[in-house]
């Protein structure tokens, strides 16, 4: 029989879930910031009107870009405010708790306490505080590292005489929390949840229900409710998992006592949500720690949803703020989210590999679940899941609506299949890497696997989310989306990553030849597919039925045509004739800025400059947006989708 796995060889699940909690709180607070500072303030109508009045295209572009960048950055105030409250609460909590419980230092310690604390072998022993109340034998940890304290019920000295093993077991459990260093993190999590509820969720729902009609108020309320549910369930998952971890740690130095406590004790009365695992589960986990190390499907789904919400929000922001192509901005967003996601879902797969036999199938199922979570997150992300301009006249449409009704069904099915396959493949690679490297280098191999996994996750999420936004903006076919995203340069990056991923699995050739062959076959199939996709010409006009604007001089009619035809009026890359026709039409329009934009299109066509054409396109799209929202010249009820800038 093989030795039981060391549950602390890799960071325990409670740490991963806490990262997930912060991720979700961050996403929710981000939207709250956007809601209060942009959407609810009429999208800064006065500043936008001032931009719309500028006579020069260059000034108009500068002005509108400045507003977009600021609007992208100010929602950071949401997470910043929550973070501030969390830090303040974290600083004040120890004194407040001490005061609230009328606690005083316990001096001298009973001998059993002294022995138990010594057995825990802590670098910095805690201070034991005796509360002025409490007839039941409870204890809990608090304080900040390295000055942790354990609060003891007033009756504890009495129980120390009548029930010494019970008291030392409870004390060992609390010392287990200190050994696991989860006390500060748990309080941070608690305050993050409280801060999110007080500063973001409740004010947002209140603001929406008091200022909007029923339909938009419901749209805000149910999304906020889902994010709150996600935050709450993740927090309770953190709390429950840390109890298992503390039991396991206590079991390392007071095994018999902790077994006795769990065997004879009874579960505290559950309130709304269960905050502690059931005692029978705790006993089973203590006897077989491997139970806690298996990849959790629920955790993968939750991580996927949180990541989906954040990449969608962050992608829109970075695309606006960073002076880089959209795909690079989305890769950056994907990578920022990929790091904590790797620490949650990826680490879960490696933890699972510590248990023998390792269920690769479960890792693949977790990958599939993560992909499904990403899909849900994309639809759930508040900023992009609703066409806010339908209800709030000033709301910007830059973030295309990623809803099932906005993406053509064929493209939606292909995209859903693609993300599910890709995340399953990344999880599969992680599982194989664990099989290859854990026996060879031990758990420290995770340090090397984690950054590469984060890159894989970042590339997959970034590419998929930019494709989703494109698909929602322009009703592209699957081939056109793939061709837009997988350019020859991107194909080189993807090929390099695939080859590195395959090479990293070389120890499998001896250890698990079947898996080695399977990985090689998959890589061999992927490499030519990148080349095929990148060499596919972009069929823009083929996907858009009406690719010409109406022959009118009225700016309103031209802009209506733009919203109906989308990027089709821009034509395929290199189609200078389309740009020339567009330039002539705009030059004759009854709006001076559109006239100047028309000149830009004509110059780009005559010089063959793609950059100038892209700039003119951005100016055209923004001008129509401004005319509609601030001049009442264009259509009053725009049909979605909003044409994509900068493509």
């Amino acid at each position, binding site marked *: 029989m093989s030795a039981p796995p060391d549950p602390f060889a890799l960071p325990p699940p409670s740490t991963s879930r806490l990262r997930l909690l912060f991720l979700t709180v961050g996403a929710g607070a981000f939207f709250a910031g956007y809601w209060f500072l942009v959407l609810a303030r009429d999208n800064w109508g006065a500043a936008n009107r001032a931009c719309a009045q500028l006579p020069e295209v260059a000034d108009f572009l500068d002005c509108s870009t400045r507003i977009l960048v600021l609007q992208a950055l100010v929602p950071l105030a949401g997470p910043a405010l929550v973070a501030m409250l969390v830090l303040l609460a974290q600083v004040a909590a120890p004194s407040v708790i001490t005061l609230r419980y009328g606690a005083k230092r316990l001096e001298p310690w009973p001998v059993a306490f002294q022995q138990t604390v010594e057995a825990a072998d802590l670098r910095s022993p805690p201070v034991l505080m005796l509360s002025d*109340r*409490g007839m*039941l034998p409870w204890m809990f940890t608090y304080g900040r590292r390295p000055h942790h304290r354990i609060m003891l019920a007033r009756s504890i000295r*009495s*129980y120390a005489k009548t029930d010494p093993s019970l008291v030392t077991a409870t004390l060992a459990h609390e010392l287990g929390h200190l050994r696991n260093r989860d006390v500060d993190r748990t309080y941070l999590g608690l305050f993050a949840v409280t801060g999110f509820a007080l500063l973001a969720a409740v004010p947002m729902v209140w603001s929406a229900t008091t200022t909007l009609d029923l339909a938009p108020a419901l749209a805000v309320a149910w999304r906020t409710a889902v994010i709150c549910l996600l935050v709450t369930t993740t927090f309770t998952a953190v709390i429950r998992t840390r109890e298992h971890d503390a039991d396991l740690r206590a079991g390392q130095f007071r095994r018999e006592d902790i077994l006795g406590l769990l065997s004879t004790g*009874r579960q*505290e009365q559950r309130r709304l949500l269960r905050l502690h695992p059931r005692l029978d589960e705790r006993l089973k986990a203590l006897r077989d720690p491997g139970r806690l190390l298996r990849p959790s499907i629920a955790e993968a789904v939750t991580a996927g949803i949180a990541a989906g919400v954040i990449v969608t929000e962050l992608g829109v922001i970075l695309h606006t703020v960073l002076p880089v192509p959209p795909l690079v901005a989305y890769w950056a967003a994907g990578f920022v989210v990929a790091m904590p996601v790797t620490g949650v879902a990826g680490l879960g797969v490696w933890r699972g590999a510590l248990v023998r036999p390792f269920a690769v199938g479960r890792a693949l199922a977790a990958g599939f679940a993560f992909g499904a979570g990403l899909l849900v997150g994309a639809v759930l992300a508040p900023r992009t899941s609703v066409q806010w301009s339908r209800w709030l006249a000033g709301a910007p449409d830059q973030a295309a609506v990623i809803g099932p009704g906005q993406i053509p069904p064929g493209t939606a099915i292909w995209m859903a299949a693609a993300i599910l396959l890709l995340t399953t493949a990344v999880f599969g690679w992680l599982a194989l890497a664990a099989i290859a490297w854990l026996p060879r280098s031990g758990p420290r191999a995770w340090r090397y696997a984690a950054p590469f996994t984060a890159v894989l996750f970042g590339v997959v999420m970034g590419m998929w989310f930019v494709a989703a936004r494109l698909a929602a903006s322009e009703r592209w076919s699957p081939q056109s989306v793939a061709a837009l995203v997988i350019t020859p340069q991107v194909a080189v990056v993807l090929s390099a990553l695939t080859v590195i991923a395959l090479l990293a699995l070389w120890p499998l050739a001896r250890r698990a030849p079947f898996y080695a062959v399977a990985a090689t076959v998959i890589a061999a199939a992927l490499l030519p597919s990148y080349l095929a996709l990148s060499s596919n010409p972009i069929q823009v006009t083929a996907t858009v039925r009406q690719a010409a604007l109406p022959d009118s001089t009225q700016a309103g009619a031209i802009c209506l045509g733009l919203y109906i035809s989308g990027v089709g009026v821009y034509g395929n890359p290199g189609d200078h004739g389309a740009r020339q026709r567009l330039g002539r039409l705009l030059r004759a329009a009854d709006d001076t800025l559109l006239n100047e934009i028309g000149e830009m299109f004509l110059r780009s066509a005559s010089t063959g400059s793609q950059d100038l054409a892209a700039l003119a396109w951005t100016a055209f799209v923004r001008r129509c947006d401004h005319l509609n929202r601030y001049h009442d010249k264009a259509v009053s009820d725009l049909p979605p989708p909003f044409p994509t800038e900068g493509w």
Partner: protein
Amino acid sequence: MSEQRTTYELIEAVVARLKPDEVELLPDLWAAYVDHPDPEHAGERLLGSGILAEVAGWAPIVVSFVGGAVLEALKEEITERTRGVFGWRARRKAKRQALTEPLTLNDEQRRMIRAAILSRARAIKMSPERAQLLSDAVAGELQRESESQGP
């Protein structure tokens, strides 16, 4: 008619019946309890271990259960004393007064104390045997008190 007992004396007598060597632990526990007589909730504590331990010791349990049951039985009197007075300090003072004064219980109040003891035992999921043992000890002492008070 003999001298009436205080709640503390009742608790002392109950502990003496259940486990005499724990009587010496009572003064410290009683002082703490009188300062904070609000009942402890048996629900999940966010930051505790989540376990209601099956303890062998009686003293803190008897202090908490009997003290709480007496307060429940004297609820109307405490409400009467704090009528027109606001704030938790006044209510706590009234509770403290009720706990330290000699007890004059009627049959209905004695019945209420027995019922409250069993209900609290259920709330903390005490084993039925221990709950019965405690209930019997309290009932015995209350009976003794009833007899000493006479008809």
